[in-house]
């Protein structure tokens, strides 16, 4: 580690009375990878936005190469050599790699764009990163991993001295992550300062030199990575101990009746001939890599997307399975199925509306008094569920947009509980939810299962699958490649099945 290149001291920032950053400190040295960790909403992104000039700080100082600075926009930050590589890639698919890298500052030859120079310069950047990408290729033809590399190339093309990675690995495969780490190590060797934001503890241990932990907008502390354990960091993040032990045996009694039977379901090429059974009180995990077709299967069952063929049967009141026709979500909801999407803000909640209005969305019929909505009854039930699910909110009138991810998820759960749905499909139930709230969601799912709700849980996190499932269905490229009882499940045999179709 070299000299200190960046010192942020006592950074304070409030939004409309909400204290988003409370005297946060951060120090980055040349030639180090500095992890910035914290639960969602801890203020990591806000801090980086203050640094790169997107937000204006209320107080505190930023010292960069010995001089106090304040950037007013990302352009100024870039010019000074501070560049951020975003989680979502800002690329134009139809332009070539070189055009994307030099977008907005194309080298000119007279009034014409100097394509030759642009491609030469791109090649040089890739050589420096030791990666092989054709600068003439259209961006949309690259994998997400390669696109990320281009984003990095773009960043270092600004002669940068401090580079910020905001959850760079979220969408990458293992192999791509390895490549990414190689690049990061190279950049470190070139004496750059690197800030690395991630939730993945394993990565932090592998790639970073120091860790700064934030919690609830405040600074908790800075550790030297190799001298600290995973537990140390987690404890600093949550301020409490968490457990991540896998389940050892199924909680679902062996004679539990089948509540949902799916036979030979086909819907596009992402859902091919899928058959499975779900038992009462069971948590059925759906594992697989991204793009395995799990969400597509769930959406087809729920009627959100059209299906080509397949038979879906549901346990009736008479104790028999009955075939049901599900052409749209209305049919599915009527049949007692509830779907909790991975993308809550887009598919789960109406953020501009209150908790109460969201909670009763799926069964407003029950709250009608003649033509009018019985708002008192609505409020009562919504408040009951706030209490039951321990949703953190000042009142049931609170707009959902003001809630954290975990609490938004609880609002969606409340919606299906008020509807009294018996089959719940949780699609990535804890994505974007911080560690503390994750545990609450897990507890809640276990409680629901023990009360006789049947749960399908789609998850890309292996620990989550092993911790929650009673049985595991594994998918790969649109096909079901295995079904494993929890007693026999290991990371290895799940991963083996999840990669079965891939050559």
């Amino acid at each position, binding site marked *: 580690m070299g000299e200190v290149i960046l010192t942020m001291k006592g950074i304070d920032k409030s939004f409309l009375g909400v204290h988003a950053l409370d005297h946060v400190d951060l120090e980055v040295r040349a030639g180090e990878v500095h992890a910035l960790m914290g639960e969602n909403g801890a203020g990591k992104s806000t801090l980086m936005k203050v640094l790169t000039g997107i937000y204006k700080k209320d107080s505190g100082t930023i010292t960069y190469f010995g001089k106090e600075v304040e950037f007013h926009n990302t352009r100024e930050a870039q010019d000074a050599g501070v560049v951020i590589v975003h989680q979502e890639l800002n690329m134009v698919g139809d332009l070539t790699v070189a055009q994307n890298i030099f977008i907005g500052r194309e080298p000119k030859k007279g009034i014409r764009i100097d394509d030759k120079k642009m491609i030469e310069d791109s090649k040089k950047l890739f050589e420096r990163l030791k990666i092989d990408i054709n600068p003439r290729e259209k961006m949309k033809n690259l994998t997400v991993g390669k696109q990320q590399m281009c984003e990095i190339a773009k960043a270092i093309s600004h002669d940068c001295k401090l580079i910020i990675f905001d959850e760079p690995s979220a969408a990458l495969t293992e192999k791509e992550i390895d490549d990414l780490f190689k690049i990061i190590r190279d950049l470190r060797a070139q004496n750059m300062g690197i800030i690395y934001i991630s939730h993945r503890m394993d990565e932090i241990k592998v790639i970073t030199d120091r860790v700064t932990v934030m919690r609830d907008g405040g600074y908790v502390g800075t550790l030297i990575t190799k001298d600290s354990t995973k537990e140390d960091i987690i404890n600093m993040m949550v301020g409490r101990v968490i457990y991540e032990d896998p389940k050892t045996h199924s909680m679902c009694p062996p004679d539990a009746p089948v509540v949902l039977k799916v036979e030979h379901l086909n819907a596009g090429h992402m859902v091919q001939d899928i058959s499975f059974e779900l038992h009462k009180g069971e948590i059925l995990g759906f594992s697989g890599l991204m793009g395995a077709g799990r969400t597509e299967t769930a959406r087809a069952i*729920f009627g*959100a997307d059209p299906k080509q063929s397949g038979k879906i049967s549901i346990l009736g009141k008479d104790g028999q399975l009955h075939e049901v026709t599900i052409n*749209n*979500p*209305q049919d*599915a*909801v*009527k049949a007692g199925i509830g*779907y909790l*999407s991975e993308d809550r803000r*887009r*598919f*789960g*909640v*109406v*953020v*501009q*509306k209150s908790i109460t*209005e969201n909670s009763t*969305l*799926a069964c*407003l*019929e029950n709250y*009608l008094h003649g*033509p*009018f*909505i019985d*708002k008192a009854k609505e409020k009562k039930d919504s408040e009951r569920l706030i209490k039951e699910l321990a949703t953190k909110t000042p009142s049931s009138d609170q707009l959902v*947009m003001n809630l954290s991810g975990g609490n938004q998820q609880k609002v969606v759960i409340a*919606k299906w509980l008020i*509807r009294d749905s018996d089959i719940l499909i949780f699609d990535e139930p804890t994505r974007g939810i911080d560690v503390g709230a994750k545990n609450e969601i897990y507890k809640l799912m276990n409680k629901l299962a023990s009360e006789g709700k049947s749960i399908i849980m789609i998850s890309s996190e292996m620990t989550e699958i092993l911790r929650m499932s009673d049985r595991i269905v594994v998918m790969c490229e649109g096909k079901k490649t295995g079904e494993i009882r929890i007693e026999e499940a290991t990371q290895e045999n799940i991963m083996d099945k999840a990669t079965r179709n891939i050559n």
Partner: protein
Amino acid sequence: MEKIKQNPIVKKIGFNRIILICVLILMYVVFCLGIKGFAAAGTKHLLNTLNYVYFLGFLSLGVTFVIATGGIDFSIGPVMFCCALVGGYCLNSYKMPLVADIIIAILIGLAFGIFNGYMVAYQKVPAFIISMASMNIAKGAAAVFTKTQSQSWPLSTDPVNGWFRNLISVNGFPVGLVIFAIAAVICGIILYNTKMGRYILCLGSNREAVRLSGVNTKKWEMSAYVMCGLLTGIASIFFVAAYTTVQPGYGDQYNNEAIAGCVMGGTSMVGGLASILGTVIGVFIISLLQEGILAFGLGKDIQLIVTGVIVIVAVYADVSARRRKN
């Protein structure tokens, strides 16, 4: 300022609405002080303003429902004229009883609403395109039907149908205002206290989440356009009750005025948020402004410019408020 905002009454009405009311009052005072003879003319300008409020109010209430779904309806002005023209033609040329003509006029509005709503909600044609097309159809059909003749509705002196004017006022008492107020209250109840209103607002905010909750979003989206069509039909009656005569080929300017009234009142152009009270106040402001501009000696052209500017300012305010929140 924060303290005022937290006051329960202010909260109930909405801080922005209170500002709008202040703007309305201020405008009236400015007109009285600034325009020679505005105050001296007594109730003349107020009555003119009210005449405007009646029909524009119904249009604006209707389009509030559509905008709440995140849609738009640019056909309301010409459809209103189409209703009044066809109804008038039935009265004048076919000698149909007045009540039947009124019903016909309202049904035509309703029919356009059903058509627009069906095309938008079930056939997924952009509302912008459909309502533009409906606007042309309404204009053309009315001209063809009436053989491009202006249509006049009964005057108060008409021995048989003179009661028509009582819709607006009886011996100087503004009946029209009472009817409009009742309509606004009903619209408010529909929007905030019924399933229809709840679903309209929710789907305007996040259609996909509402659909995935098992709600028939198409049906409820269409209902907003139907409501708009019905209110457009009613608006046509109040238009002719105030101005007697309608000419084929016009009506477009009222689209923007109705939309301006609605957006100024706090209904968001991207859907999900709507205020009936805001729309009502917005309509009053637009109407007073139109009268003020005329009284100031400026013509129709200036009215158009002012309405255009209001739409831009109101939408810009909405968009920038949204950006601040994010």
